[in-house]
């Protein structure tokens, strides 16, 4: 009886608890970061970071439980990909926060993680087995690379939003409440570039492995794909490409880069919703 309980009731209970803790933590942390942004209370920023870590811990448990249950990594269903995406966004955020100490980035990135997790609650939690195929490693690669690339883009998005807010303030000469909290435009610009320089190659590789997988599995050509599902991805990919390659060749700097990283992220989100 006991072993059946731990195998049945307890994991379900754990899943619900951890999922809720993660969601609530991210929501709470988003609010705390926002309060910090507006009211500049140093304690609140630390509190927010702590809250994010609590969320991340629960989130890690969610992924662990799910993988234990399905017997494979979080790669098959939309639900799994969504929780994995959100998890990596937070991991990469924590790294950026620790490494570059950008104040306020959490205000723009953690809500993204929260929204993805919220989106995941509406998806089917059904367990789907990993497709039996000799090319399954391709699918694993495709999803892992794309998801890491996506997380880097999420950071670039947050930085891009910060850039655009600050740029607008300096340009219009109306220096608002966030003025004293943000890093300089040039540092934001450099960080966006770094994030895209990490994200773009990974995302491209993810894209390629996905394409090869698709061809191998469906035995068809690339052009048979539903083009509607692909156009946002292509737009996003081109934008990131411009940010990545255009910096030295075409003078893509500053505002254009920030806009590119914001619009690019939106198109990638749309394409993921359509695709996964």
């Amino acid at each position, binding site marked *: 009886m006991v072993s059946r309980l731990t195998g049945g009731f307890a994991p379900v209970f754990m899943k619900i608890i951890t999922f809720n803790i993660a969601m609530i933590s991210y929501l709470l942390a988003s609010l705390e970061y926002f309060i910090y942004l507006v009211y500049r209370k140093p304690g609140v920023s630390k509190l927010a970071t702590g809250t994010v870590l609590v969320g991340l811990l629960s989130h890690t448990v969610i992924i662990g439980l799910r993988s234990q249950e399905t017997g494979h990594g979080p790669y098959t269903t939309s639900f799994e990909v969504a929780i994995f995406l959100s998890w990596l966004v937070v991991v990469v955020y924590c790294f950026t926060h620790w490494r570059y100490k950008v104040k306020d980035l959490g205000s723009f990135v953690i809500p993204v993680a929260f929204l993805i997790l919220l989106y995941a609650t509406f998806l089917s939690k059904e367990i789907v087995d990993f497709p039996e195929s000799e090319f399954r490693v391709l699918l694993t690669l495709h999803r892992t690379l794309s998801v890491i690339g996506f997380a880097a883009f999420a950071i670039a998005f947050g930085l891009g939003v910060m850039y655009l807010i600050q740029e607008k303030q300096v340009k219009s000469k109306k220096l608002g409440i966030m003025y004293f909290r943000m890093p300089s435009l*040039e540092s934001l610009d450099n960080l966006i570039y770094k994030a895209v320089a990490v994200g773009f190659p990974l995302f491209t590789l993810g894209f390629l492995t996905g394409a090869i997988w698709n061809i191998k599995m469906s035995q068809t050509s690339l052009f048979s794909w539903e083009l509607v599902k692909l156009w946002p991805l292509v737009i996003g990919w081109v934008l990131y490409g411009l940010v990545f390659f255009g910096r030295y060749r075409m003078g893509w700097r500053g505002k254009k880069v920030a806009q590119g990283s914001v619009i690019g992220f939106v198109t990638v989100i749309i394409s993921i919703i359509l695709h996964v």
Partner: protein
Amino acid sequence: MAESNLVIVGVNHKTTPVELREKLAFTRGSIEETTEKLGSYPEIDENLIISTCNRVEIYARVNDVEKGIDRLKKFICDYHMIPFNLLDKHFYAFREEETVKHLFRVSASLDSMVVGESQILGQVKDAYSLAKSLQTTGLILNQLFEKAFNVAKKIREETGIAESAVSISSAAVELARKIFEDLESHTVMLVGTGEMAELAAKHLISYGVKTVYVASRTYERATALAKTLNGSALDFEHFKSELHRADIVISSTAAPNFIITKEIVEKAIHERNNRPMFLIDIAVPRDIEPEVNDLENVYLYDIDDLQGVVNANLQEREKEAELAMDIIQAEVGKFNNWIEALDAVPTIVELRKRAEAVRMQEIEKTIKKMPHLSEEDKHNLHLMTSSIINKILHKPTINLKKKTQTTEGRTYLKAIRHLFHLDD
């Protein structure tokens, strides 16, 4: 509040015109020679003089608050040989708790002409260390000033009171630091050699700018200024073609028309591969075409824009000052608690009461068990037990009174209250 007997008498930039203030100033030397005299007055236990260009204040712990204040006022008048009736209306004086609040406000720079300026804290610290070395302060003033420095630090950290720039040249630096990652690797070009431009350039250099170019219609002036700024002079004819080298341009020529047009900057920014440019136009009439600001990655501020930033920052400081006042209120309360705890008498009285209660309780029990005792026996029993209690408590009472004169006093009082459960 327990009586701290703290007072402050002074004049500042709000109450007293500068012609009078300057006559009241104390130099370091005059403090050294007079403070002993001040301490020799029977009314005054501890004293400390702060004298800056905006204020002259004497903080003191006195025997009698009103007499003490009169003494301090007279002292200032006498020392500077100014008739009392001339000066009296300019004086302000605070008593007890208000003294604490006033010092906290002064050292946190809430009472300054430019709220949030950082100089005053250093001046108060200097005055304190001088007084300490002259041994004119004691337990209470020492604690008061140490506390004031903590409060000032806290306010600086927790509010934005000193965060923003409140002069034109510091506003320019502040903006440059919002645009560029670090100023060390960036280049400033001065077009024209106006005084304000020089000031702004010096400010930028103090924040790390290493490369400076100076262009002026008179080449000699360019060379002279370049020399003082450790930069290099440019031929005025050529500065436009060199503009792309500059991250920050400060223009201050006397030219009647725009000398830096949108076209010129467009070319420069293109040559810079769109790396941002910050253009500061402090010339009147203006040197730089306003449409330059429409170019991407180019930020143009003229003198009015900078003044606008300064005004906004000043307003922001006023708002932050309100937050700071909340902190001060709370800290004044904490200081009061400290003063209260310093007072040993209530604790001693309570301790004796507690001992007496125990004695009475035990005596009654004993007498009930021994009904045969005569009145005289009972009386002797009372005498003996009282004497034991007095003997046991005598030394602690003396020591406690002594210790409360030192900084450890509070710890002793706390320990006693805790050991004998006096707070229950």
